[in-house]
């Protein structure tokens, strides 16, 4: 099935989060406001604006069961938004609740815990704030995970047990922490990551192989495996027993986001503008192909150069620059388009639809090109030529 492409704006989509019923989506269009779009047939119309931050919003997460939105921003704040009836009109409106983050640098990433009673905010202050609700004061309070983080934390992901948290950081390490909060959590059962888990226990620390920032981390659905993508154009899959680490170096530009679609497959995307699928098990991992089907009609043009680099675009600009030639024909603009669906870096990939057995059958991506795309996660085009340089 062809991917569904929706253009939201001419500006980048920094992040996106769908509501549980997938009829609404919260996006940040590279601005201080988060916008909620509602689906009407094949179009998305803006219905509400969440305005409270005074710097760029970096991350949004929408809790599916409690229907609360959390936003994190460069203004060092996070807000939890909840739908409450307006006292005058009785209409449901989104109202923000303050979060006491206690960080002195930008908040970079935010995720609700599986039970939705906590959330984690990554930040540039070399810390992760674990936030839980304080009903007495009607605000969210935080506890900071600090040691041994040496630089900005770029991403976080929760383990299904609601206690463990993975974090990827610009000090080139992916780590697994315990984010156990006494007031909220029951004692967690022992897992492959450890048995005694007081707050800030480090259950694992893994370096990126060629010294790249760790852009994205994710636990597998069972929570027993960790995957991270780093700026050295590689993706690593960690089995904590041993530990066994599978590292796949890719021949294209780095990934910045990834998500597990089942216990044995991962979708990763980033600067290469297309979602790529990896598959494997404890015995080994490898790249399978791209969700972006390059064999469709629009990509039938001859491929030259390396990777997805479009040499036609290059020669168009070179002709205009050095020879004063400009193509005024109707075919010219098409030549400057990338051969992929997304026309720029993909900023975020998230599960969209679940099939039988908890498998993710559709994923959504948002990009710097202002597009939101919903992909069929199982229609992988084997792209031997395209990923020719990829080996395990």
């Amino acid at each position, binding site marked *: 099935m062809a991917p569904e492409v929706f253009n939201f704006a001419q500006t980048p989509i920094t992040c996106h989060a769908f509501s549980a019923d997938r009829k609404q989506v919260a996006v940040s269009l590279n601005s201080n406001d988060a916008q909620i779009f509602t689906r009407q047939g094949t179009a998305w119309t803006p219905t509400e604006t969440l305005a409270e931050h005074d710097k760029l919003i970096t991350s949004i997460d929408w809790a599916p069961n409690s229907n609360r939105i959390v936003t994190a921003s460069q203004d060092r704040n996070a807000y939890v938004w909840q739908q409450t009836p307006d006292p005058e009109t009785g209409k449901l409106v989104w109202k923000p609740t303050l979060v006491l983050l206690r960080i002195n640098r930008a908040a970079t990433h935010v995720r609700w815990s599986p039970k939705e009673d906590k959330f984690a905010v990554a930040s540039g202050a070399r810390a992760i704030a674990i936030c839980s609700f304080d009903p007495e004061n009607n605000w969210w309070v935080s506890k900071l995970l600090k040691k041994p983080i040496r*630089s900005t934390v770029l991403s976080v992901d929760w383990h299904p047990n609601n206690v463990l948290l993975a974090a990827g950081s610009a000090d080139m390490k992916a780590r697994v922490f315990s984010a156990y909060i006494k007031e909220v959590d029951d004692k967690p059962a022992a897992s492959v990551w450890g048995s005694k888990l007081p707050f800030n226990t480090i259950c694992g620390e893994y370096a990126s192989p*060629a*010294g790249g920032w760790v852009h994205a981390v994710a636990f597998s659905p069972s929570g027993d495996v960790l995957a991270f993508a780093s700026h050295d154009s590689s993706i690593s899959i960690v089995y904590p027993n041993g530990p066994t680490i599978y590292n796949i170096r890719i021949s294209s*530009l780095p990934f910045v986001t990834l998500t597990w679609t089942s216990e044995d497959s991962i979708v990763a995307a980033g600067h290469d503008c297309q979602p790529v699928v990896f598959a494997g098990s404890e015995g080994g991992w490898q790249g399978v192909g791209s969700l972006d089907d390059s064999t469709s009609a629009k990509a039938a043009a001859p491929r030259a150069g*390396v990777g997805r680099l479009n040499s036609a675009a290059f020669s168009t600009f070179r002709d205009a620059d050095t020879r004063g030639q400009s193509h005024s024909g109707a075919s010219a603009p098409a030549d400057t388009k990338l051969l992929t669906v997304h026309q720029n870096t993909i900023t975020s990939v998230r599960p969209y639809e679940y099939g039988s057995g908890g498998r993710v059958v559709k994923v959504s991506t948002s990009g710097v090109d202002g597009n939101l795309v919903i992909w069929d996660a199982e229609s992988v085009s084997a792209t031997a030529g395209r990923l020719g*340089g990829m080996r395990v």
Partner: protein
Amino acid sequence: MDTAFRKIDIDAYDEDVLQEEELFDADPRDPAQVLDDAKQRQGAVRSALARSDVAGALNIVLENAPYGPNVEEAKTVTLQTLLTILNTTKATEIPAVIKGLSQDGQDTLMKYLYKGMAMPGWGDVSGSVLLGWHEKLTEVAGTGCIVRTMTDRRTV
């Protein structure tokens, strides 16, 4: 506007500043031993080249290449050795040689190509030869290889 404050090294006042050596795992070998290794490999590479075994020579020089601080001399020797190989290889042989390298080897070769290009006029550095290798290596290993060269703090 007063911009003098920009010249202050604020990191000097930060007790918790991230140090260069924390960014990568140091080479466990002793600097003197690394230098010995580099010199020995120079000989091994010469004899491999005498047998016109370019792939073998490249494998020798790219394996366990010196990195990190305190091994400047070994780095220089290794670069010199590598340049002899690059300069004596026929352009038609290059793609096959590169395909025969391991991924580590390809990444390390890319590091040396960039190091060479950063030192124009030094020793036997020839821009056209380096660019020729760079083109062929990028075709095989992709842009990912260049990105790894840029991110890796284990500089050669």
